[in-house]
């Protein structure tokens, strides 16, 4: 690449011919196609990528993978497509990508917040718990606005997410997670045996860590050639699904695994039809976890300066992207794999200043190669200090046994504290781990599901062993001829060599949450002896990287201070997601119109065309009121009520729940489910029924029509239909399975048009065939089958207004045409459409309850004033025993009453509390509350329903409703405000 001395010609897999342009903090930079944002920045010599969470310390790129704690950025295409906290080591660059560093002001190089660093002794472990206590007023003035703002990482986008996300359910016989040597082998063996296989890998390319093994050969092929050949074969098989850029992030019960596939985040101009991400919900017979291992840092003073990075990351950038992170590189390690990185860099022409190894005994072959390459070796040494503010400049070392200190000038330090097996998914599957003392790591031990771990996630480090293990797990043992396999020997956890280091320096355990070794020690000293407490007190492992690099260090340091063995201290719990998953992917299609289904009646479109304002009732859209020009809601509702009582109103009651109960035992069943007696209800008659639960409280109500000896048309409340049917089915299937009754939900099959008012009969009469509508032939609470507008109908004479009322049930498809016919005829006579608000007012004027509004699950039929609906002679019904419970028959129950305000113009607030003495001291004794409250235009005054202690014996009493600024005086009345004699309904 032009002018970049960090691109090493001949190294990596990227083509120098394919360049892309992106910006970082406003600077336009060039990268190669296939670069990650991290490799592109390194190619441009940029290590400083952000400021740390708490102390605002300069931070750089630490890793080359999803475990990255430091280089997290704000990535955007446009204003709405902005995502904070994206890991630069995962994000692929594309033409036009904009990257912005986070948590710095005014700029990344000069950040005011870094004053926190010099004050770091004031921010120790448990800082939040120690500080955010008092005084109360500091919350508003200091803690919230100042401290919360100073800490943190990205900023959430302000616009709605314009992208779409897809969801895919999938089933397979074998799901392989991870496509390194072990994963590819397992997938291949399983696929060749004919099984349906899904192979997923979180990276943009398959191959895992093999992609950086330039020396290794497998069956005589270079590692990259072996990967290519294996993939070619897998691609040719129709029983294999290969998913790259796909993270397995959750492992749930019964081998259910969730995958997040990033479909278009790497594309410069994604096709608009492409989803941004796809959520896979996979059910697998067998899961093979080949998730590899993650390299750890070493915990030493000032180990967080930019250009201090993992050895494996340096090697990945060199061997995959052709980028070197520096030109005078120091190596600090406790593990063989870092030596391989040093050799690769040296052979690419990069100066290796020294390899500093904490170990005394080092493999002779490594020593030999280092000598051949003329690399300085410091055995049994440790790093004691580093310098360099925006980039590391020097490293100081001394022998572990003490002695002369040496200082080296460097521009990059690579390190390896060994490898932590990625047991996240295994642990999520509820498998149990064991501690491998010799290698300082937790590895899978007891499985909880049909799952098997292979390769380095299982602690199997040798490549040849991993291949045997993986192939055996997939059904057939294979052995491949491996040469120059990488070695992962050696480890270092905790900070055993830096216990007494200068307490003003900072040895970071958790980079993302700014947790130092000294914080963990302090937490233990302050009494946090459980690792779960240490974690929460120090916040180690609680950042978006979930402690992928820090957990083993934190645990080891805590164990050391506690003077316990690591397994005694134990690990914190691994939880999904493995890496952060976007809300978009999880919300998926459940947004906007698809968030929750909307139910519309057959008459909805007519109401919409005629100016209705709608309200949501459950999932239903219901016409609330029909304002005329210039009318507000109040005026419209007043007009609808008055006109319905004077002439007639038409109302869409289609949302009523409807259940058809049929069979020889139907009447027996009705007797069981409802408190009322049903034996004597004649065919062609209707009855208002109350349904209780076994505890005696009202569960639902509705009018029930007997169409035949063995057939009932049941109506339920609008919201209650599913639960009522569920309860009925429960009794029928499990308690009385021999009864011959069949239940069918018919809520959506029938459209229901209610016509109420003195002229209701006159309005519908011309359309009705085969039914005599005269009051003597069809009195209140009767049902007839016949035709209306030539269409078969069930016509009920029922009323929820107290006026003469007809409810016309017709097949839903005819709902709108019948409605229109009736309206066209009735409108010239004065018929008005009315909505749910007028319906509520008119039913309240008559004292008709609404279950769920005037009852709340603790109200019995007696409490609600409908005790008459209980069949006194019945020997059984649901709730018969519950109603006899001592508390339900005791004095002092809250009972439903009417309320009239002393000032007739005052409309009480629903939910307002009621007291009997307004002069008592606060808190007052509340004796009830308002359940329904309206302005009654017909009565010229406000009306309310309320539940009040001993309400039924308080008629005529004066009570009080204290509100914030005023106390209202009310009189307890009957619940029936309008036409108490009930004469109008029989007209």
């Amino acid at each position, binding site marked *: 690449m032009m002018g970049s001395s960090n691109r090493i010609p001949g190294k990596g897999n990227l083509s120098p011919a394919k360049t892309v342009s992106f910006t970082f903090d406003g600077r336009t930079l060039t990268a190669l196609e296939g670069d990650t944002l991290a490799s592109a920045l390194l190619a441009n010599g940029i290590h400083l990528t952000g400021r740390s969470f708490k102390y605002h310390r300069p931070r750089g790129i630490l890793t080359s993978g999803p475990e990255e704690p430091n280089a997290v950025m704000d990535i955007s295409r446009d204003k709405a497509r902005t995502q904070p906290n994206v890991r630069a080591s995962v994000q692929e660059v594309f033409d036009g990508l904009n990257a912005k560093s986070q948590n710095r002001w005014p700029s990344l190089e000069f950040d005011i917040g870094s004053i926190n660093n010099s004050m770091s002794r004031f921010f120790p472990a448990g800082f939040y718990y120690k500080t955010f206590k008092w005084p109360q007023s500091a919350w508003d003035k200091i803690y919230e606005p100042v401290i919360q703002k100073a800490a943190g990482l990205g900023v959430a986008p302000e616009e709605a997410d314009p992208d779409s996300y897809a969801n895919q359910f999938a089933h397979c016989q074998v799901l392989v997670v991870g496509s390194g040597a072990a994963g590819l082998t397992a997938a291949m063996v399983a696929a060749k045996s004919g099984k349906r296989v899904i192979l997923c890998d979180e990276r943009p390319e398959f191959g895992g860590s093999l992609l950086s093994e330039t020396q290794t050969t497998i069956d005589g092929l270079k590692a990259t050639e072996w990967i290519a050949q294996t993939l070619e074969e897998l691609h040719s098989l129709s029983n294999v699904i290969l998913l790259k850029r796909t993270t397995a992030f959750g492992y749930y019960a019964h081998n259910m695994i969730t995958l997040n596939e990033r479909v278009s985040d790497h594309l410069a101009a994604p096709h608009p039809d492409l989803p941004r991400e796809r959520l896979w919900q996979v*059910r697998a017979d067998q899961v093979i976890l080949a998730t590899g291992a993650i390299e750890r840092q070493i915990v030493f003073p000032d180990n967080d300066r930019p250009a201090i990075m993992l050895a494996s990351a340096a090697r990945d950038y060199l061997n995959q992207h052709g980028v070197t992170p520096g030109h005078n590189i120091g190596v600090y390690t406790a593990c063989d794999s870092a030596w391989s990185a040093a050799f690769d860099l040296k052979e690419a022409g990069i100066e290796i200043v020294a390899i500093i190894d904490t170990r005394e005994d080092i493999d002779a072959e490594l020593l030999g190669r280092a000598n051949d390459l003329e690399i300085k070796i410091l055995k049994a040494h440790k790093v004691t200090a580093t310098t360099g503010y925006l980039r590391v400049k020097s490293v100081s070392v001394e022998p572990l046994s003490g002695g002369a200190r040496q200082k080296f000038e460097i521009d990059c330090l690579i390190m390896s504290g060994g490898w932590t097996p990625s047991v996240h998914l295994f642990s999520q599957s509820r498998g149990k781990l064991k501690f491998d003392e010799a290698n300082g790591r937790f590895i899978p*031990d007891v*499985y909880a599901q049909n799952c098997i771990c292979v390769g380095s996630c299982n602690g199997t480090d040798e490549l040849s062993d991993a291949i045997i293990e993986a192939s055996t797990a997939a059904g057939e043992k294979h052995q491949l001829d491996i040469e120059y396999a990488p070695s992962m020997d050696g480890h270092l956890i905790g900070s055993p060599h830096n216990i007494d280091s200068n307490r003003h320096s900072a040895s970071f355990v958790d980079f993302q949450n700014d947790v130092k070794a000294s914080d963990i020690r302090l937490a233990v000293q302050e009494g946090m002896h459980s690792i779960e407490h240490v974690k929460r007190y120090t916040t180690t492992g609680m950042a978006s990287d979930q402690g992928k690099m820090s957990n083993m260090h934190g645990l080891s340091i805590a164990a050391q201070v506690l003077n316990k063995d690591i397994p005694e201290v134990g690990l914190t719990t691994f939880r999904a997601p493995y890496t952060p998953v976007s809300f978009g992917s999880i919300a998926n299609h459940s947004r906007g119109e698809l968030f929750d289904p909307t139910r519309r009646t057959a008459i909805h479109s007519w109401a919409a065309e005629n100016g209705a304002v709608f309200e949501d009732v459950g999932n239903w859209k219901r016409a609330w009121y029909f304002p005329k020009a210039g009318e507000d809601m109040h005026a419209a509702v007043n007009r609808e009520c008055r006109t319905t009582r004077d002439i007639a109103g038409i109302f869409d009651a289609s949302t009523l729940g409807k259940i058809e109960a049929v069979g020889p035992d139907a009447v027996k069943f009705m007797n069981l489910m409802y408190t009322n007696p049903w034996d004597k209800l004649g065919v062609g008659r209707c009855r208002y029924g109350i349904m209780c639960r*076994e505890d005696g409280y009202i569960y639902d109500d509705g009018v029930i029509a007997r169409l035949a000896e063995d057939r009932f048309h049941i109506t339920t409340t609008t919201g209650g239909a599913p639960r009522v049917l569920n309860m009925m089915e429960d009794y029928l299937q499990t308690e009385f399975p021999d009864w011959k009754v069949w239940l069918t939900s018919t809520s959506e099959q029938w459209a229901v048009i209610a016509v109420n008012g003195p002229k209701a009969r006159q309005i519908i009469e011309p359309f009705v065939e085969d039914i005599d509508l005269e009051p003597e032939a069809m009195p209140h609470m009767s049902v007839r089958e016949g035709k209306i507008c030539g269409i078969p109908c069930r016509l009920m004479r029922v009323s929820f207004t107290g006026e003469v009322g007809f409810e016309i049930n017709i097949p839903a498809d005819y709902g709108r045409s019948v409605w229109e016919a009736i309206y066209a005829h009735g409108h010239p006579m004065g018929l008005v459409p009315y909505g749910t608000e007028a319906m509520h007012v008119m039913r309240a004027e008559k004292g008709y309850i609404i279950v769920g509004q005037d009852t709340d699950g603790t109200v019995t039929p007696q409490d609600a004033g409908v005790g008459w609906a209980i069949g006194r002679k019945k020997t*059984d019904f649901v709730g*018969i025993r519950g109603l006899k419970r001592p508390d339900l028959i005791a004095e002092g129950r809250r009972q439903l009453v009417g309320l009239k305000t002393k000032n007739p113009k005052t409309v009480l607030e629903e939910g307002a509390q009621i007291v009997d003495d307004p002069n008592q001291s606060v808190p007052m004794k509340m004796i009830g509350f308002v359940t329904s409250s309206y302005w009654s235009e017909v009565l010229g005054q406000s009306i309310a329903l309320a539940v009040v202690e001993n309400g039924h014996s308080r008629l005529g009493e004066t009570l009080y409703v204290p509100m914030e600024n005023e106390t209202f005086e009310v009189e307890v009345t009957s619940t029936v405000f309008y036409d108490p004699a009930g004469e109008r309904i029989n007209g």
Partner: protein
Amino acid sequence: MLLIHCPYCKEDRPELEFHGAGEAHIARPENIADISDAEFEKFFFIRENQKGLVFERWRHLNGCGRFFNAARHSVSDKFICTYKAGEAKPEITEEQLASVLPPARGDK
């Protein structure tokens, strides 16, 4: 997400299709109107809520609509068996129970 075997459909189906319906084998007393307060309390309010082997009711609501019973381990979430409503509570053998136990702690 659990995979549940519906004894009526005779198929393993995802949990999304089912609703839990509480503890199984609690029969509604035939003389319910006459039972004592203590008996009613036991019938209506008291539940075992055991850690370990549980007998529970499910309904294949978004499927065949049938209620049925299951024997499940409440820690491992594994099912021993499902069976039709009205069938006797099955005897669970030691082997059956052992097959659904959560893994014992590996280390220690």
